[in-house]
């Protein structure tokens, strides 16, 4: 693989550590701000959607309006009330969305993604990684189409899947995260614009890593993508997701829904590097990342693993979860969440054991620096049917400095006496002795700190595809700038 620069784009933004903050000047096709039936109809029309989908959107919208005043407040995060009428729900940076081939992609757009380190042109594309690049509300290019077609793998924007594979979409959309699931999932169901769709046919091992690259560019635009991944019997797919946003003084809302379905003997590996703009040193601006991610191990012997490295966003609120329905199915969650300056994160996972002999592993590493706060919130639920279920949970927190905080909130619910659960939790500090020892060997304070934090995260990085692990560790370095000294 040759995607060394997937996330570490080299463009420097002055006065800020965030290196992906430049924005592009396109002539966007914007819907007016605000949320209404008309807007939902407009989105649906732009995408030429069938009636069942529009109806589903409207059903979601009505439910959302009913619950509008019941924004969830249980998470350990603080932010001013969001004015949902002040957000733009549709923005297309190009007037030629969903190109049939790369020749149809706006050359300006190719340049823009190349600047972000994601070359999409045939001769320059990342080797071994098929990329679907999404800017604001629209998918602009998908590489490696031919190889994927040969393998029978479908990897395309969800709006295209709605046109081409309506039965698959209709069957699975909302089957893991119903439209009524939670406040933000309901909102997403009403206004989702784009996102990736993947279907891997029975017995196929997807020949390349599949990657979606998300970017919010337009001012005051929310990003509401919807990702749906289906691994049919005995198939395997590894999917990577990378995200950035420009430097903005106002907060941008990102409320995605991701649904994964693994049928019998299938495996889905889902990796995220989340690097949305975290806000500046004083806590101004940044992305609100309120995301619902859930996988269902629907068939027996299936496996879903979530690996995430989260360094961005002003506020993160997300709990990638696995429903272990098939017997012998496996759910895994590996996470590094780093918060610095004024960032807040309330993140964790849910493992719901339904089938027999189901197994889950949770390893969560939280790093807090500056005045930031992070909370790990995890739920392990063993239903009466889940005979011989097992869970192992390990939550480690690392503090840098003495103004930050880390909290661990585990919920455990066991309804079957044969279950075996193990839980370990530690909190440690990057000690002055560790820093001094490392500095005494000629290594600068910042590098010493980075080295120690990197050591703390090692167990998670090894779960990422190799090149992505290098990216993750570079991302960590950038996010730690100014954390010590």
């Amino acid at each position, binding site marked *: 693989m040759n995607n060394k620069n997937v996330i570490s784009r080299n463009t420097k933004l002055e006065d800020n550590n965030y290196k992906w903050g430049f924005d592009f000047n396109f002539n966007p096709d914007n819907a007016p701000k605000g949320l209404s039936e008309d807007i939902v109809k407009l989105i649906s029309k732009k995408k030429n959607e069938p009636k069942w989908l529009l109806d589903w959107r409207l059903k979601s919208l009505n439910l959302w309006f009913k619950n509008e005043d019941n924004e969830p407040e249980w998470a350990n995060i603080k932010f001013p009330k969001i004015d949902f009428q002040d957000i733009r729900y549709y923005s297309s940076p190009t007037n030629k969305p969903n190109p049939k081939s790369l020749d149809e992609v706006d050359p300006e757009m190719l340049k823009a993604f190349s600047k972000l380190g994601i070359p999409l042109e045939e001769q320059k594309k990342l080797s071994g990684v098929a990329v679907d690049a999404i800017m604001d509300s629209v998918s602009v290019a998908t590489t490696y189409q031919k190889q994927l077609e040969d393998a029978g793998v479908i990897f395309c924007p969800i709006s295209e899947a709605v046109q081409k594979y309506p039965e698959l979409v209709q069957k699975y959309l909302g089957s893991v995260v119903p439209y009524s699931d939670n406040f933000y999932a309901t909102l997403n169901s009403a206004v989702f614009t784009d996102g990736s769709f993947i279907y891997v046919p029975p017995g196929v091992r997807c020949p390349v890593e599949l990657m979606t690259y998300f970017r919010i560019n337009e001012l005051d635009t929310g990003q509401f993508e919807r990702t749906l991944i289906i691994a049919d019997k005995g198939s395997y797919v590894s999917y990577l997701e990378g995200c950035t946003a420009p430097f903005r003084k106002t907060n941008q809302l990102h409320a995605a829904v991701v649904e994964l379905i693994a049928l019998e003997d299938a495996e889905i590996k889902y990796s995220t590097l989340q690097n949305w703009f975290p806000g500046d040193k004083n806590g101004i601006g940044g992305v609100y990342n309120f995301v619902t991610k859930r996988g269902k191990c629907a068939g027996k012997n299936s496996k879903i693993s979530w690996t995430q490295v989260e360094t961005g966003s002003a506020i993160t609120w997300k709990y990638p979860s696995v429903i272990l329905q098939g017997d012998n199915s496996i759910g895994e969650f590996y996470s590094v969440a780093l918060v610095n300056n004024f960032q807040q994160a309330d993140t964790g996972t849910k493992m719901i054991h339904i089938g027999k002999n189901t197994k889950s592993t949770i390893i969560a590493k939280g790093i807090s620096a500056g005045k930031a706060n992070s909370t790990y919130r995890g739920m392990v639920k063993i239903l009466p049917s889940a005979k011989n279920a097992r869970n192992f949970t390990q939550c480690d927190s690392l503090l840098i400095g003495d103004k930050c905080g880390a909290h661990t909130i585990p919920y455990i619910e066991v309804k079957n006496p044969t279950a075996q659960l193990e839980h370990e939790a530690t909190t440690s500090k990057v000690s002055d002795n560790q820093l*001094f*020892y490392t*500095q*005494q*060997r*000629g*290594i*600068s304070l910042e590098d010493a700190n980075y*080295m120690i934090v990197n*050591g703390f995260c090692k167990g998670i990085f090894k779960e990422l595809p190799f090149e992505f692990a290098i990216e993750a560790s570079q991302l960590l370095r950038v996010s730690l700038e100014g954390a010590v000294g």
Partner: protein
Amino acid sequence: MTNNKIILEIKNLNASVANTQILKDFNLTINMGEKHTLMGPNGSGKSTLANILAGNPEYIVDSGEINFLGQTLLDKAPEIRACLGLFLAFQYPVELPGVRMWQFLKSSLDSQREYNGKDPLSTKDFDSILNECAEKVDISQDFLKRNVNEGFSGGEKKRNEILQLTLINPKLAILDETDSGLDIDALKIVSNGIENFSSPNNSVLLVTHYQRILNYVKPDYVHVMIDGKIVKSGDKSLALELEKKGYDWLSKK
């Protein structure tokens, strides 16, 4: 084996930690090529001196001078002092969970090379140097795959300090009780490491409690430190005298 080039000069140094003065008008000069031994009872301030020299920010210099190879150290960060050629083998080496030995040692060497205007070593060149050094101090390949000091025995930690000394090859090596808690075999390895390192182009300040290591490492000078200052200096025979008589006869003077 001394020449007259001064490597370290400490003048009238007063220093404190946790608001208590520990070093009191401390003076010491070390020339290039010399080996000095600093002895003294527990709590006399030996480690404080070592930490002050290496720039540990917990320890505060109240007054005095420290010159190293002709420039002051007082305004320099710990990593700069290291890059200038000052090495401290810690009395209590620190564990770095998850940080691989290999990565730590390579970063250390590359960073010092960069400061001194040299290119980083290729992985291949580094490996061959590292293996050579590891062999000298009887450290196995498995050991190099572990995390820095994590789960090491006391003796392993001390040997690791000597490995780093050998690899980094500094101008001045300050060894803070690197000999304590070692069995006789480990003591020989550590002493050998120090003797192999020592040359006319570098110097050693060996901090110890015990005369025992002086059977292997031959110092040019022995100093006795009590209550924050040097009360007596001499040659190796002073160490033997201390072994017989203890420190009381010096402090009661």
